[in-house]
């Protein structure tokens, strides 16, 4: 046995047993023919097997019901995270446009405005995923990942520089980085024949129609002297943000999933739990250090935080229900 054959057979051991028994001899024979013709194919061939292993383990004829559930969960999380990122990017862009209007500055008024425009690559990524352009989505999500890293570097550099903001990176921004990484990884796990329902485009367009005018109006109506005493109307207006719409969407999604489509419970639970945990860790609404102490504990923000907690608990419950359904699907209802 040649070293190439030994190496290839070692990778093939990762295949599901039934598949390996059926195809291993064929694959080794074809592989040895292939590398005899073009030796440089070896690395690409090993990667192709690794990709095949992933697909078969998660979504092939040889996958267990539980593996298939996790694969559907990964696809669901890919849809939800790219939707969230594209809506947030739209919000960032609308904020920047609103600030430009408010301070009457020519566009682009600052380096960050270009970064804001670049964040729209998330919208393109989401549209590509919805339209089944998986390869384009993978390229775009890499651009989005690089963009996010660049943005983080800018923020960190400004934070630690003399005269900078002087604020340490908080749990919220750490959770944000984690969210972007999760979105990127899950997009890479989408198979090329993945074709989601067209209704996903509406899931972006409808909230975007709310978020864009609210973000522009918030930025236009905001003035620097409101930093320490933000009025209640501004807080109320900002309630119609991506986070609020996300929580409303999560609750509606979980109710629908409970009634009709149980396979969506687990992705909704994991995604919603992750977002809620990130926001609660950062006290996104309830404890913003830039706001005056009197404003921190307003009934409005407290109630928003309570809603977030309720959604987080609902996510945990939904996760348990989803896992119970998975056990029933495997014919082991008493597996706990």
């Amino acid at each position, binding site marked *: 046995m040649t070293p190439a054959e030994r190496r290839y057979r070692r990778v093939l051991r990762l295949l599901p047993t039934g598949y390996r028994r059926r*195809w291993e001899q064929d*694959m080794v*024979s074809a592989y040895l023919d292939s590398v005899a013709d073009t030796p440089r194919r070896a690395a690409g*061939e090993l990667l192709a097997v690794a990709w*095949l292993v992933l697909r078969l383990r998660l979504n092939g004829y040889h996958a267990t019901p539980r593996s298939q559930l996790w694969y559907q969960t990964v696809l669901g999380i890919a849809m939800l995270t790219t939707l969230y990122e594209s809506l947030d990017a739209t919000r960032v862009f609308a904020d920047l446009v609103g600030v430009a209007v408010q301070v009457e500055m020519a566009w682009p008024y600052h380096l960050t405005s270009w970064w804001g425009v670049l964040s729209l690559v998330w919208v393109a990524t989401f549209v590509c995923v919805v339209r089944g352009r998986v390869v384009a989505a993978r390229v775009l999500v890499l651009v989005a990942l690089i963009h996010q890293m660049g943005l983080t570097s800018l923020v960190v550099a400004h934070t630690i520089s003399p005269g900078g903001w002087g604020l340490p990176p908080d749990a919220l921004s750490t959770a944000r980085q984690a969210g972007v990484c999760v979105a990127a990884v899950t997009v890479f796990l989408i198979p090329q024949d993945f074709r989601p329902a067209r209704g996903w485009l509406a899931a972006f367009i409808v909230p975007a129609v709310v978020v864009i005018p609210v973000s522009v109006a918030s930025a236009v109506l905001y003035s620097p002297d409101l930093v320490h005493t933000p009025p209640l109307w501004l807080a109320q207006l900002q309630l119609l943000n991506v986070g609020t719409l996300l929580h409303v969407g999560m609750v509606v999604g979980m109710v629908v999933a409970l009634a009709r489509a149980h396979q969506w419970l687990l992705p909704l639970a994991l995604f919603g739990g992750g977002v809620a945990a990130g926001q609660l860790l950062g006290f996104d609404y309830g404890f913003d250090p830039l706001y005056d102490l009197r404003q921190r504990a307003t009934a409005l923000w407290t109630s928003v935080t309570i809603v977030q907690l309720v959604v987080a608990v609902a996510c945990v419950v939904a996760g348990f229900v989803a896992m119970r359904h998975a056990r029933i699907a495997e014919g082991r209802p008493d597996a706990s």
Partner: protein
Amino acid sequence: MTEPTFFVLTALVGEPRHGYGIVGEADALSGGRVRLKIGSLYGILDRLVADGLVELDREESHQGRLRRYYRITSGGLDAVRAETTRLAANARVAGRRLKALRPGLES
């Protein structure tokens, strides 16, 4: 039907082939655009066999190794015909549009 699947089936029209033979034929038929990795080929073959579009033809020994040849089934031929009709209809529509746009370029 994805493009690699289409060329795998088309490569088997007319004569049974073994794995690497299918890779070479798909490469030639597509003008070098579809260069299948072995892992990708057997992912496709596994599905095609499970769907009854391809089946085992025979086994041969080659340089001490087993070689299995696969042939297309009548269901597989129907699938290729249906896909060919669909692609041809697409090409006709696009051709008509292009002809209307720049009549001088069309014969």
